[in-house]
């Protein structure tokens, strides 16, 4: 495999959008092209992530429409990826693999999603479509419900009171809102308190409303290129030095819900390829769809031992300024927002900007190596990318 790098990255502000999925991706994509100092004619393929455009905009086959709106060359094929919430990370990984293999030199990848165009019951229903429709969905399980079950199991396994775990989880939310308060692209740019989280209504016991990421609209795009091409596009290429992806689930096949096995497999793959260990990672954008999910992720990715990650946020170890791995400096899914098919590309965007030293007040000092972690469905897909500021 040849060396692969990221040139331009861009994202829309996450939140509520009046623009369609296609229009939002257009804004992100043109931003990424401008930052790469290239034009649409230079793109050789489009790898577009989108989960639910059919329901959001009544728009299927989105890749071709975006391709034409952007004016990409007719010979540049357009693909739509769907891997639940891991969608855009999977699209970017595939782009990196294709460029690494020498099939393409320059690929536009990313994702777009307009969840808030649906009302909450409809959005909850369509999200639940990513759980097993025959065997899981009839129980009325929701995604907050899946992680709520994981939280109860975590508390039971490690002998914790559910009220004390709830407080530790609230600190994850508080920390991610603090990070997002410095992120102009975030959906929620204000700080919250532990009390506020614990006072918010219950969505799925023990997860409160403020333990949960919001429904969000947004898009993000990245230009993936061979090293040779990337260094012509930017002074600061960011290298994709390791990737991993694994499949598993549903929950009945991953019954120890405190250990999301596909994450352990995918991240091991990425660490091995990159030749780094968890201790080498300066910052990580990971899948905090719910506060407990961040706790499970920092353990599954190897930053903490199993059963030891619950108090990391409360102790400030995952917060900006910590000398350990900073977790979700963007504000994460919780506070930056979670337009599901775009999320992975926004995680990549954050890491790339951090590694370039462009993150202003939320800059992780001296950041050189970052990890992206994105989870889809009831533990169905995990995709990891390791990025570094040097090859």
């Amino acid at each position, binding site marked *: 495999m040849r060396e692969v790098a990221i040139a331009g990255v861009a994202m829309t502000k996450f939140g509520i959008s009046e623009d369609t999925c296609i229009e939002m991706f257009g804004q992100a994509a043109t931003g990424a092209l401008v930052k790469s100092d290239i034009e649409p004619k230079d793109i050789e393929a489009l790898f577009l992530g989108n989960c639910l455009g059919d329901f959001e905009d009544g728009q299927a086959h989105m890749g071709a429409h975006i391709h034409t709106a952007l004016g990409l060359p007719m010979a540049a094929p357009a693909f739509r990826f769907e891997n639940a919430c891991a969608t855009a990370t999977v699209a970017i990984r595939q782009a990196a693999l294709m460029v690494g293999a020498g099939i393409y030199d320059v690929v536009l990848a990313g994702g777009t999603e307009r969840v808030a165009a649906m009302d*909450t*019951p*409809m959005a*909850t*229903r369509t999200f*639940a*479509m990513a759980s*097993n*429709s*025959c*065997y*899981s*969905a*009839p*129980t*009325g*399980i*929701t995604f*907050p*419900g899946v992680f*709520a*079950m*994981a939280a*109860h*199991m975590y*508390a*039971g396994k490690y002998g914790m009171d*559910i009220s004390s775990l709830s407080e530790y989880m609230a600190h994850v939310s508080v920390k991610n809102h603090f990070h997002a308060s410095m992120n102009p692209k975030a959906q929620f740019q204000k700080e919250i308190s532990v009390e506020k989280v614990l006072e918010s*209504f*219950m*969505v*799925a*016991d*023990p*997860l409160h409303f403020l333990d949960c990421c919001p429904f969000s609209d947004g898009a993000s795009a990245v230009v993936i290129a061979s090293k040779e091409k990337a260094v012509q596009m930017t002074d600061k290429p960011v290298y994709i030095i390791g990737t991993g992806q694994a499949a598993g689930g549903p*929950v*009945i*096949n991953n*019954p120890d*819900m405190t250990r999301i096995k596909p994450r352990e497999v995918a991240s091991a793959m990425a660490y091995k390829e990159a030749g780094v260990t968890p201790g080498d990672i300066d910052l990580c954008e990971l899948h905090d769809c719910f506060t407990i999910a961040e706790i499970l992720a920092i353990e599954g990715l190897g930053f903490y031992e199993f059963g030891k990650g619950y108090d990391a946020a409360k102790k400030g170890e995952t917060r900006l300024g910590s000398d350990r791995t900073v977790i979700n400096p963007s504000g994460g899914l919780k506070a930056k927002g979670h337009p599901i098919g775009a999320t992975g590309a926004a995680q990549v965007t954050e890491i790339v900007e951090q590694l370039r030293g462009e993150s202003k007040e939320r800059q992780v000092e001296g950041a050189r190596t970052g990890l992206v972690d994105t989870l889809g469905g009831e533990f169905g897909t995990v995709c990891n990318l390791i990025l570094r500021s040097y090859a």
Partner: protein
Amino acid sequence: MKHQHLFKDYQQGLENGELIGVYCKKCKTFSFHSSLSCSKCGSMDLVGKVSEKSGTLETFTVIRVAAEGLTPPFIVALVRTDSGFHVMGNLEGIDPSSASMDLLGKQVKISSKKVTRDRYSQGVTHCLSFTLDQ
């Protein structure tokens, strides 16, 4: 019987009051009905077999914000059947507001109920339900 792995066969089993799993002829492990290979050894030499309808509740949640068409609150639980595989279903017969961590590890009986699905799914289907084994 040669296992068909089809949802309609699983449904027919529940209609008859039976929870059907798949049983590995090679390593004698039970897996969930829809598995096309053994969850332990990977063998595809499986037969359908009636499972125990009892198990242990391993975790749960109370759903308070539900998808379109459902009325919360209700309890969803993960149960390890006494045959060894896991199933998801609804815990019934207790008030959701009284659900607590004390439920973890409780023995349950497994049955099923008919639920009406929506336009995106398969009409009326059996869904597993659990009751505490007092």
